[in-house]
């Protein structure tokens, strides 16, 4: 069962049987720009980038993005940069995997962001979504649609944070502007 999250809505990452999630994946998918005319290759591609920023006590400690695909501790992995997008049919084009059990003990929040590296606003991007998946069984936990995101080039999607010995996810959906996660830092910090 999928929860369609609204802004600010939080869900606990506990399983129904009381077990705790051990690995989650943040998937990002969008539809490639349509090809037009003879010189189809000249179409401006849309490159969205998923990133994860690891915080300890509201200080950024590590970041996983297309230039640093694995966090130093190995608990967060990016599966690689997709520069053009996919079919827009719901498949993930970029993924960030989080092994929650291996996240270092001092990391208490992980913030997921999406940036438009090529500069298109979300108004121009078709069928874009972000979702959180239980990596152990492939079940979708939450989905957030980016379509109609307005004149923004970035969105702070969600944060996964420690709570009561387990992990909890809160959907943020805060729009922002920036090419990479660095540009978003001022917008992220108030949300922690």
């Amino acid at each position, binding site marked *: 069962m999928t929860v369609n999250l609204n802004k600010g809505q939080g869900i606990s990452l506990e399983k129904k049987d009381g077990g705790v999630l051990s690995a989650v994946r943040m998937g990002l998918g969008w539809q490639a720009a349509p090809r037009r005319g003879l010189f189809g290759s000249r179409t401006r591609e849309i490159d969205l980038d998923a990133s994860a920023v690891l915080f300890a006590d509201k200080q950024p400690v590590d970041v996983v993005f297309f230039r640093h695909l694995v966090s130093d501790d190995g*608990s967060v992995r990016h599966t690689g940069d997709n520069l053009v997008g996919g079919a827009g049919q719901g498949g993930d084009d970029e993924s960030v995997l989080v092994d929650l059990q291996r996240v*270092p003990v001092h990391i208490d929040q992980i913030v997921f962001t999406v940036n438009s590296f090529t500069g298109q606003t979300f108004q121009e991007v078709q069928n874009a979504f972000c979702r959180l998946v239980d990596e*152990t069984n492939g079940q979708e936990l939450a989905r957030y649609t980016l379509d109609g995101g307005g004149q923004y080039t970035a969105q702070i999607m969600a944060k996964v944070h420690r709570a009561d010995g387990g992990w909890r996810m809160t959907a943020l959906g805060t729009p922002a502007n920036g090419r990479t996660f660095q540009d978003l830092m001022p917008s992220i910090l108030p949300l922690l």
Partner: protein
Amino acid sequence: MTAELVRGQNQALPWTRLEIGVEADRALALGAVLVGEAGHALGGAEGIALPGVPPPPGLAAPGPPAPTHRLAVDLGALPSAATRLDLFLALPDGPGAPARFGALAAPRVLLLGPGGEKAAGFAVTGLAEETTVVAVELYRRNGAWKIRAVGQGYQGGVPALLTDRGIDPETARRLAAVAQAHPVAPLPPAPRPDPEPVPAGPATPSGGRVDYTHPGRRPTAPAGRHPYATPAPAAPAPPTAPAAPVAGDASGWSMEERLHNQVWGMFEDLARTVAAYRGAVEFAEDRRERELDAVLDDPRGRTGQGAAAARAAASERYETLVARAQEALDRDLAQLAGESQVVEPALSPALAGWESPVWHAYRPPEQPPLSVRLGDLGLPEAPELRIPMLVRLPLERGLWIDAGRLSDGEGESRPAGLRALAAGSAALHATRLLAVHPPGGLTVHLLDPAGSGAAAFAGLRNAGLLAPAPPAGAAGVAEVLERLTRRVDLVHMAVRGGARDALPPGLDTAEQLLVVHDFPHGFDDRAVTRLRYLADEGPAVGVHLLLVADRDDAAGYGPLLDPLWRGLLRITPLPDRHLADPWVHHLWTFTPPCVPRGSAVLETVVGATARARRPGR
């Protein structure tokens, strides 16, 4: 009450007269070797108890191969020079006999008191390719005798075991034939389907069926797994209980590649786990500093109860976080240590340490290996854990054994005798590279214009494993470099021109390893230029460099040689902290390989390599 021993465990022996019992589901040969101070069989062949041979004093003669054995030992009657008694099991010869211990259920060794009462048992589990296993050893410590569960064996069988204890190979082969001769047809031909396999003789400790599982091992680990078997899919386990590690649990086309990748995976995991721990501890320290500063910044609460409480709270938060980080580290290290325990014994000679039993069963390979072990890597957080440092073959960059200094993290030190150690280390690396290449696959040239490395390389030189020695001094240097430079140039031209078959007929097509001892002694400017050419261009066409040098000796060249040093992989003849991993750039302690003291494994390997290279084979 019977004690169950685990591998490596020892126990004091309260009696001098005792019996060793063996219970197995197949016929096994039992033998014993009396070992003296030097680790050699006492009195040569006379210190060995085998069926049909007069036993040494204090020992009964073992019976012929059978599923059960009883061997009486009188410790008081053993020669006073005996410090140890090794009891070994061997697979018998003959039709229907298993080819390796991995193919049969774990044999069980029992320690029986003078009245026949059982005092201890040891299930020899986890065996695979071995054909002979030292099951237990009785040893003298401060005048008293103890028993230790050993359970380690030799792929090369009884001859390898005896050779390792100082018996000459000829005699060892003769004795092995005696020990393993099978006078009767093999007993049960197949594993019994009967779930009550009660062997003859006294009942097992629990009185029920024999428990073949290792007491110290988790139940998911299959006992006696064949290390080269394709790993079975791990049973789905709850995420809190990680599956038991299995050797070869990585991707790859062959077992060799899988093990190589698994070792690199362990290397990465250790680097990252320690990064997580260090990150957490550093953060905890920072936070405590900040909190203590905050207490001091507040002039109202700088003294008094509130401040003390705040300080205590800051310290407690620090302690809690560090303890949790330590817990996570311990969990990960235990997992890696378990993996290391199953991976190390599965490694082939090229990847195994010199202390590994696979080197005793060494046979020249037919193919060069994928990679070779240069030494071990470790981090201070995990002093017990050593990760093999594997590099791909053919070497992409030359090796430089630093004979000048150690860089132990912060400062630098110059231990005495480092030069001699460096020469010995170079000879050891050269020996390994020679041994893991097929016969004729690698030619080693030694450039030692001053002759100062002659002693270290004497073993290889006498065995005929080095290319003919060039004339001493600068003339020899020029000659060898000239020849190798020409070779590199010719092969380069042939490769670029797509005319590999147009190479001159006299050209040695083997990989070449140029060992330069005491660089830059005997090198003029021209020779240095040639060497740099070889270091840059050689690896692509099979000419590799092993340099033994003190960088200060070449200080006269100024910064001109810096690119040469940077281009070589620097290793040290003593443990040293200077290598960085490619993921998080920790400083790792490199431990060079070394041969166990008193072991004849190096001579055995050099001898076997030399024999395989002799013309006419």
